[in-house]
């Protein structure tokens, strides 16, 4: 390996400084980017087009950038342009099917190149030469689908150390879980996981889209109850509850559980109060609920029996579940994006996931009426949908695991904690929607 690639990307630093902040996965939006450095670069594909893999430090974060190099930039790649280097066009190579096919071939060949290790999971045969196509960009990843067979998720902000998403998927796969997309392979630089390939679920529809189709159907009726309309979602919600419970059971069986005592519970309660303090300072509408919220959090301290904790999904909502022809599948076990990797790795009560999903049902129900002229009829229908599907979800969960409603104090505290977080998010981003979490807080307190 020569220094060529490193030099090539170094020459691109000014262009990257301009380009990075325009990317959806760029974290430090609005910051002044003075320090942009290439920390490692490796040439993965030589020739034209060429592919250089780079890690770029910008604004204190490390980003994974795949740079494509071509003498002529085809029209469909023009939007991916980063800049020019040595008379070549440099661009975001994840948009280039040809180069990505080459990347996939490295996994297929279990290659070690440029200090990166490409590995198929044990026992998995990955075919080479698969047609690659980029799909939608997410908050922190870029995903590429290979011939409808597997999907490679490239972590744009890779963190050193074990990768939770990979570890939990492996554990679940080892347990024979049917509620995940089976792991296919990884890309890593030493201890840092850069990419994770999983079986592609081509027939999948997102939980959010599936749930909101049902809500639209209900709201179009107006004079029918949620249980009466054709688009009733309760059956799906129950199956989803069962799927989540099965994942929890598998994670508990392979990675273990423990019961935490008063001390750690107290820490958790303190953290909830801490979050509430921050949001109260920012959102005055929340003040009227402060007493009730604090009482709900403090009630957790009174639980004598301790709390069962284990590895959980950590960021569960309708956007993290897919309906496939074979049933519901949970995706993205990376954990809550807003917290540090250390915190994400902690074991938690599985009721955190349940609370996340219950809040998500509320969002799915109410987002169509939020921000509109108040309409009592529609609001009542939406609330009915939320109640019906939250109940069905818990019923389905209880058919496989313990009934989450049996731990009412804890579940309520988790839901409210989540709602407090939502209040801040909506206050900052979508003021029209702040009514959704506020209404939930009002109902529960």
């Amino acid at each position, binding site marked *: 390996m020569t220094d060529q690639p490193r030099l090539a990307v170094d020459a691109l630093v000014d262009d990257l400084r301009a380009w990075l902040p325009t990317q959806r996965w760029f974290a430090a939006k609005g910051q002044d980017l003075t320090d942009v450095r290439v920390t490692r670069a490796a040439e993965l594909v030589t020739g034209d087009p060429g592919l250089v893999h780079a890690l770029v430090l910008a604004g204190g974060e490390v980003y994974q950038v795949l740079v494509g190099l071509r003498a002529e930039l085809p029209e469909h790649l023009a939007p991916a342009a980063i800049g020019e280097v040595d008379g070549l066009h440099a661009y975001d190579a994840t948009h280039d*099917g040809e180069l990505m096919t080459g990347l996939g071939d490295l996994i297929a060949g279990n290659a070690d190149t440029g200090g990166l290790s490409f590995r198929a999971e044990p026992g998995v045969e990955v075919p080479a030469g698969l*047609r690659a*196509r980029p799909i939608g960009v997410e908050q922190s990843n870029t995903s590429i689908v290979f011939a409808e067979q597997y999907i490679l998720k490239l972590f744009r902000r890779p963190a050193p150390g074990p990768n939770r998403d990979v570890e939990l998927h492996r554990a679940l796969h080892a347990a024979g879980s049917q509620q995940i997309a089976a792991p296919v392979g990884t890309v890593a630089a030493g201890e840092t996981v850069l990419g994770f390939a999983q079986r592609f679920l081509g027939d999948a*529809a*997102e939980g959010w*889209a*599936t749930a909101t*189709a049902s809500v639209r159907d209900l709201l179009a009726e107006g004079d029918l109850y949620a249980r009466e309309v*054709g688009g009733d979602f309760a059956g799906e919600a129950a199956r989803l509850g069962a799927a989540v419970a099965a994942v929890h059971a598998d994670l508990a069986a392979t990675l273990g559980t423990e019961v935490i005592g008063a001390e750690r519970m107290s820490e958790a309660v303190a953290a909830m109060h801490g979050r509430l303090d921050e949001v109260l300072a920012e959102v005055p509408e929340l003040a009227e609920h402060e007493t009730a919220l604090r009482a709900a959090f403090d009630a957790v301290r009174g639980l004598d029996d301790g709390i069962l904790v284990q590895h959980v999904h950590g960021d569960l909502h309708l956007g993290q579940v897919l309906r496939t022809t074979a049933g519901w599948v949970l995706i993205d076990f990376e954990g809550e994006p807003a917290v540090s990797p250390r915190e994400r790795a902690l074991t938690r009560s599985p009721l955190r996931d349940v609370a996340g999903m219950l809040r998500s049902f509320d969002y799915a129900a109410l987002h169509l009426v939020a921000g509109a002229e108040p309409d009592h009829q529609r609001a009542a229908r939406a609330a009915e949908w939320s109640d019906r599907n939250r109940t069905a979800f818990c019923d389905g969960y209880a058919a496989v695991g313990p009934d989450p409603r049996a731990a009412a104090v804890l579940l309520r505290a988790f839901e409210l904690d989540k709602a407090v977080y939502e209040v801040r998010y909506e206050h900052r981003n979508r003021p029209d929607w702040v009514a959704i979490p506020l209404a939930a807080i009002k109902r529960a307190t």
Partner: protein
Amino acid sequence: MTVDNRDLHETGDAAPDAALGLEGIPHTGESLTADGHLVEPQAEDFASARAVPQDTQWYKSAVFYEVLVRAFNDSDGNGTGDLRGLADKLDYLQWLGVDCLWLPPFYASPLRDGGYDISDFRAVLPEFGTVDDFVHLLNEAHKRGIRVITDLVLNHTSDAHPWFQESRNHPDGPYGDFYVWSDTDEAYPEARIIFVDTETSNWTYDPVRGQFYWHRFFSHQPDLNYENTEVQEAMLDVLRFWLDIGIDGFRLDAVPYLFEEEGTNCENLPRTHEFLKTCRKVVDDEYPGRVLLAEANQWPADVVEYFGDPEVGGDECHMAFHFPLMPRIFMAVRRESRFPISEILAQTPAIPDGAQWGIFLRNHDELTLEMVTDDERDYMYAEYAKDPRMKANIGIRRRLAPLLDNDRNQQELFTAMLLSLPGSPVLYYGDEIGMGDNIWLGDRDAVRTPMQWSPDRNAGFSRCDPGRLYLPTIADPVYGFQAVNVEAHMNNTSSLLHWTRRMLQVRTEHPAFGKGDFTELGSSNPSVLAYLRRHVTETVTDDGAVVVTEDRVICVNNLSRFPQPVELHLSEHEGRIPVELTGGVRFPAIGELPYLLTLPGHGFYWFQITDPQEEGEPQ
């Protein structure tokens, strides 16, 4: 039309041919041979119909049309449709574009189970006509390229059948062992009772013979004893009788129940399959090109057994009905979710090369809910049978149009799916004009009312006094024959009838629909069901070159009542052009990126995927 034949039970020495009004026409049991066998009519006694062009795989791409003889057209003015009346309407059916008629049983019968209680396999129910009339119908149909199949009940006969009369009266005679007799009613306890509304046991005591007889259906339908090889031979001869006359095949009714075996549920037993293999061999050896269609109301994974050995392309039935698909289509549209359909198709196993599914939206039976889970059944009842009278047995007795609230868009969407999902579609008479039903009629008669031909008296079905009709015509203001009839639909080129005809034409032009493989195209929109049908044909030219032609059709269905966008991943067809099949409009070329389509509520598209071609006038 129920005929009380109780007197047959009581009089031990009634003539074996006491079966109903067949005096003067050839029938079973006119006399007995010296050894006590019944003399039965033979095919040579009748003319036989002309043959249709040879194509032994015709059923794989055929459009079937189920027509009740009684309900279609009355030629003699007695208020009941008949075979000659049906023959008079073949021009209409040819115009519509159907390939094969399926006639429910028209045999001599006491009609206590809609003709499925057959009292003579070799005679036609007199009110429908005669065997000669059937030959006439077959001839006229074949002349128009239309085939005809009919139901044949292998499992049982009517208790009025001379075989049964002989069997109960002469236990030691040649027919003594034709039925399943027992001294007790205790055998085969694990066999479920099918008609739970009316029957409490699968055994009924016969006072004449002093024994119990076995029946999986009604107590007036004793099961034939297939352990007895003479029964097997007798039924094979029944097949031959009609095949010699020229019929194109049979829908074999209630096939899973032919044999009984202690310790089983008496369904799908290996020996039942063996007998079907024998039937198939008779067809293949003696009557190639004729078909056997199994009616086995079971899960697809079990039904595929009735196609026989996949290694040889199937050696039992050529076709079988796919029952669970139909309620799932209804459920998917009501839920605005593709998953009820996707799931059942994913659970449907591959079938042998020579086999084909029969699929349908509605037929003369109720909308069957046996193939849905209890939860789903409650849901279907709630959605589609808001009035309890609409429920019958374990199903819903409605026609397509009223099931869909007479919504034209939905009727088109449902029909488009019927014509494009894997399997040969079976249309039900009257649904092509959106006929209604009459839920106040008893049993399953709600959906068996006279075909509506015109706004004239009796809907143009019969010249009789309206009071003499076998069932009243539909007369309500929405579905009544004054508004909904063939004549009115013919005169309006935007009618459902014309639309249906056009769709059948399009289907005929594309072998992918009938013979192509099926691949579901997933998308992130749960309300859109999209799939690819692809058929590759290899033809050898005169100079020996092999030409491969590929017919690729993509079908996209919006199951939601709201407009929907969908992004389909079609990049394997990159550079090709989708051409919409009903209008021929060329859509933008498929590129590297997902292909975006927008669909109106309950809208659908059929696209042929074509190679790019220069368009427009010469440059």
